[in-house]
């Protein structure tokens, strides 16, 4: 379970260009479901995911992960939490250009010192499961939009993270690919993983696998629908 208590995030704090991205958010996110954060641009969805995924620290308030406070931890502990608990799919997917699909998927495991053959086998299994096995050795530049997204999902899952965080994952996808993505999300939910998404897309919000929708506006949670 992930909890946020009275969490605020101010960028450029103390400077004239300070921006309050989140304001006193209190929220509980259950394990094992699919939660969608929706709201207009600038409503704080991405900031909230960054805080939950230990990619940034709150300016005030407290975040806990399975009861343990994480918001005040030093950087190296946050990195460890990111490795063990979270897999990220970024809005632009952020695969490293020039590397093969397989190399990209193996990248999160590189600093762990695991047997490279085991990591490779795991990465290939993830790619196979997402229908990208035949493209494993191709450079990422040749992938289509949907394939790039699936490669990013495979990368997010290679360390078997229990929580998948995806920021606007279907923003650039057509209807067919969006449905394919939702199928993947449903499969992950069935495996017991927690999926946190941000989206404007009504097809995502109305989709079957979604268990909760958090509506945000002006840096605040205005409604939580389960």
């Amino acid at each position: 379970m992930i909890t946020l208590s009275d969490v605020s995030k101010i960028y450029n704090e103390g400077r004239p260009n300070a921006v309050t991205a989140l304001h006193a958010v209190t929220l509980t996110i259950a394990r094992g479901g699919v939660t969608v954060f929706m709201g207009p641009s600038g409503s704080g969805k991405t900031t909230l995911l960054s805080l939950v995924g230990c990619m940034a620290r709150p300016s005030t308030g407290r975040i806990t992960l399975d009861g343990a406070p994480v918001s005040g931890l030093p950087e190296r502990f946050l990195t460890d939490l990111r490795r063990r608990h979270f897999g990220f799919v970024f809005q632009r997917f952020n695969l490293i250009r020039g590397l093969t699909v397989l190399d990209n998927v193996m990248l999160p495991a590189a600093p762990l010192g695991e047997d490279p053959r085991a990591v490779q086998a795991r990465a290939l299994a993830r790619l196979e499961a997402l229908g990208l096995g035949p493209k494993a050795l191709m450079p990422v530049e040749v992938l289509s939009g949907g394939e790039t997204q699936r490669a990013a999902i495979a990368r997010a899952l290679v360390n078997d993270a229990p929580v998948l965080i995806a920021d606007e994952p279907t923003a650039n996808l057509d209807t067919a690919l969006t449905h394919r993505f939702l199928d993947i999300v449903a499969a992950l939910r069935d495996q017991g993983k927690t999926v946190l998404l941000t989206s404007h897309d009504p097809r995502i919000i109305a989709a079957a696998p979604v268990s909760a929708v958090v509506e945000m506006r002006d840096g605040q949670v205005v409604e939580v629908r389960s």
Partner: protein
Amino acid sequence: MNALRRQRALADYTIAALSRRKVKNLALVAVFSLVVFLLASAMFFASALRQEADAALEGAPDLIVQQLSLGRQAMISADLIDDLASIRGVRDVRGRLWGYYYDRVSGANYTVMVPEAGQMPPPGQVIIGEGIARARGLEWQGAPLFLSRKQGDLNRFDVAQTFESDSALLTADLLLMNAADFRAFFSVPEDMFTDLAASVRNPRERATVVDKASRAMPDARFVTRDDIARTYMKLFDWREGMMVALAAVAMLAFAIFAADKASGLSAEEAREIGILKAIGWDTRDVIAMKLWEGGFVSLGAFLLGTTAAYAHVFWAGAPLFAPVLKGWAVIYPAFRLAPGVDLSELVVLLLLTTLPYAAATVVPVWRAASADPDAVMR
């Protein structure tokens, strides 16, 4: 085991990262190699000059006595050999025959010497330095060398061998001749020598011996081994000083290069670091990866630069520096320095080039990697 695997994985990623930016990294290695090449060439050249000085001094006598006439060196009488030998502490006094010969054919001055008994070529034969062999095209044994006497007639000598010496700088223009041939060629009477050379039993008594000898031979000049050493040091220090100046320019270029590198990362590099951190890389992992990158680049440039410098100085005869630093004689620019590398200097060069570069690489990376990675989410 995990630590090794981790380093291997980071190194693998680094190699992939380097090959992704081939053009940029090859240009980087090329510039870096050029700086190392200049530094290493200067260092090898200076080292070789010191080696030449050491080799030259090794065979120098403790004391040389020269006859002065009108303030200039003149031939010295063989009678003075006994006078000098009678001074306590002096031993092995011998007369030396040597001089200079201007060769109109090659337009160069040769140093003509009569070696000690063991190295004396047979009558009619000469041993020549590499420079003479090259200048006169006499690169085989038995080749005839025609030299013109002051009387205008030509004398034929056969080349017994080409001189092999550790001190190429001093032997390139050297021509060794039999004593009888020397006297006949230069018209030197039997009882005269160019100068006298002597050993002193106790090197600390050289000054005392010179003091006694100068009283016995007031019209002679005495040159000790220490004087020769000082002259060589002045000669080689000047040349080494030029090398240091060149090295300083190369270091300055390197400092500018490193400062430019340290000034920041490209937006693409910063973004990549953000991605790596977001997917679970630690700040230490990113820095380790960049250290590998710096290591590959700087070590590669070091190896390329030093290998090229070695070839430049010892195989090609340092064509970039030689015209300025070696040539007081026509034949010198073509000769090769004896290979010799001071390992400690090489280590210093390695540290001077790799450590500042690694530091220059790591500082901006550390700054980028220390920030929260949430910027990549946006």
